[in-house]
């Protein structure tokens, strides 16, 4: 039975490889249904805007739905590698299925770009590269802005989950050695009916600034609670909250807040000499021509960034090997790790053999909410 199966697989693989030998194949596993489909669908739409060929080779993109399920993601990744003979794996848009793809990538030696942050420190996922910014890089931008504005005491009000904990840990790393410190650490959950207790505690010591770590419209409730308690200091929000849902739900109460984000969110306001200006404007123009003004989306941005990276590394890899071979996959990895800084929609990446998180410390920009819109703050 197993023997027949493997024979069959071999025959299938042979025919697939024959058909696809000339093209560069890319397999993308995305949540197109299920709880994180809101993240997967913009990525799919952005992939539709990718160039059809790079370096003279046709780009063959195969997208499969993983429904945010790691089991499906593994199945998809295996299919990509064995049946479709892909040169590059991508996805998913949530961390658990992205980890599943990373495992297949490591096992088969296939380059993998993920749209959800996974742990790529110290060789845990040797073939995987993060396209979202790490909390550490974003913490750097927040800590730098706090330092510049003379803040000494900071209150923390964050999600009682991995995002909240990671941000707190990384902020502490960036604040070490400065005279800034956290004076309170309070947690809440997105679905809480009230954060009055936490807001009271965090504002009790009247810190110079309060950092809210939450995502999307969930970031508005703690913000409103702080304003309701009469807090007058600076309020910082993270890149998880850098969407218009914050203003939609928060209304007038979120006016004046500082929000960290990738430069693409305020592409128009970037100074002409900003490294991401040109590349971010290119994406925003193409995207918003189809989906309407202010429809830009961080996840569509990640998919666009992936195509920018491919345009940089595929021509280099093509010089040494043919697509569909093990050597080509190795050449892609080598090209990415030696490409130097690449400006993207979401910032500037500089992947190396030891740094697969990529983004450089000057990636994050600080915006202020003024009259219900983002206003870029000078560095």
């Amino acid at each position: 039975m197993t023997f027949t199966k493997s024979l069959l697989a071999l025959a299938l693989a042979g025919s697939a490889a024959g058909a696809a030998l000339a093209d560069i194949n890319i397999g993308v596993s995305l949540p197109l249904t299920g709880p994180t489909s809101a993240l997967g669908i913009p990525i799919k739409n952005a992939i539709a805007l990718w160039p059809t060929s790079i370096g003279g080779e046709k780009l063959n993109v195969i997208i499969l739905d993983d429904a945010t399920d790691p089991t499906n993601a593994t199945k998809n990744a295996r299919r990509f590698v064995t049946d479709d003979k892909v040169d590059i794996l991508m996805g998913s848009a949530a961390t658990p299925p992205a980890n599943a793809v990373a495992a297949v990538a490591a096992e088969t030696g296939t380059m993998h770009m993920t749209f959800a942050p996974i742990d790529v420190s110290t060789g845990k996922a040797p073939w995987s590269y993060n396209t979202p910014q790490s909390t550490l890089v974003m913490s750097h931008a927040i800590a730098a802005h706090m330092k510049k504005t003379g803040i000494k005491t900071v209150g923390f009000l964050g999600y009682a989950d991995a995002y909240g904990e990671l941000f707190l840990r990384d902020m502490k790393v960036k604040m070490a050695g400065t005279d800034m410190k956290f004076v309170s650490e309070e947690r809440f959950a997105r679905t809480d009916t009230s954060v009055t207790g936490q807001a009271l505690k965090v504002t009790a010591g009247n810190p110079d600034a309060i950092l809210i770590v939450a995502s999307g419209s969930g970031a508005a409730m703690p913000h409103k609670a702080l304003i309701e308690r009469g807090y007058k200091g600076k309020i910082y929000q993270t890149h998880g909250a850098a969407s218009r849902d914050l203003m939609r739900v928060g209304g007038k109460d979120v006016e004046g807040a500082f929000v960290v984000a990738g430069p693409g969110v305020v592409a128009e306001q970037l100074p002409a000499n900003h490294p991401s200006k040109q590349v971010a404007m290119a994406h925003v123009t193409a995207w918003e021509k189809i989906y309407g003004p202010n429809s830009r989306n961080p996840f569509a941005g990640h998919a666009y960034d992936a195509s920018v990276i491919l345009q940089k590394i595929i021509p280099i890899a093509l010089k040494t090997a043919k697509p569909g071979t093990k050597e080509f996959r190795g050449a892609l990895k080598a090209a990415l790790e030696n490409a130097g800084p690449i400006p993207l929609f979401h910032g500037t990446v500089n992947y190396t053999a030891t740094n697969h998180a990529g983004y450089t410390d000057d990636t994050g920009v600080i915006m202020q909410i003024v009259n219900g819109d983002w206003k870029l703050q000078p560095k």
Partner: protein
Amino acid sequence: MDFSIASILLVDGLTNGAIYALLGLATVLVFAVTRVIFIPQGEFVTYGALTLAILQTGQVPGTIWLLMLLAGLAALAEAWQTWKRYRLAGTALLAGLKVLVAPVVVSLVTLWAAPQQFSLLVQALLSVCIVTCFGPLVYRLAYQSLADASSLVLLIVSVGVHFALTGLGLLFFGAEGFRNPPFWNARFSLGAVNLSGQAVIIALASMALIVMLWLFFERTLYGKALRATAVNRLGARLMGISSQTAGQLTLAMAALIGALSGLLIGPTTTVFYDSGFLIGLKGFVAAVIGGLASYPGAAIGALAVGIIEAFGSFWASAFKEVIVFTLILPVLLWRSLKGGHSDEEH
């Protein structure tokens, strides 16, 4: 902690506790009449709040498509059952149509009213009507044919209904949350305590609803029929009280209470498609404190849950939920040691 902080937390706890009290009462009511531990109670809260939020944007809420679908299925089931029993096409058709009337009328009114941007109160009333219609349909489709099954089977069905309604909520309302405008924008200062108009409305509406429930059960024939079913299903049936009608009426009331809770809580917090579960679960904890049988016990338990939650979030915010849900253990221990059965228990 000084007096002012304590009083702010107390007001916050009582405000949320009032909502939990309503949900606790609904849980007790449903369990007493149908023996169903009604986990999807919280979904009615979300549906109520988010249907209003979608109406506020001038769009047609997705809930009415689900409502029409469920009504269609329930009508088919009802017609088929009647046909099997009487073999009369006319009677069967009439039975099916009777199920369809209320949901279809509500849906059509919503379709017409949604783009007109009526005032907040009209839209709130419409949301309550939509969500209330769900109650009998959910009972008809999920529970009615299993009415004599064990409590465990009914609990498993409840879990299924909960997941189905949450998933559909994500489909209709999206992953992002909404915050409704307050019904009353006033603010009152009582010393350190800053009381919002919405908190006053929550307190008054909860009290009014509890009094109305009491009047319903004490003074009306339908209320007495429900109580009779709760005390003894078989006996009530022998007296000519239909346990199916009792079940549908009970779920309609549970849905009504859920939708009203959603309207009350919508302006004070951001409501997501999955917010209802935890809110409903806290109502359930309150109901357990009342032994799933006592209405005053559930109401007092709910206020206790609200206050403990408020103080818990001040002292140890990371462990707030742990504190609230661990509360159920000593209560269960105390209840099982006390051992006695109240009059109206099965």
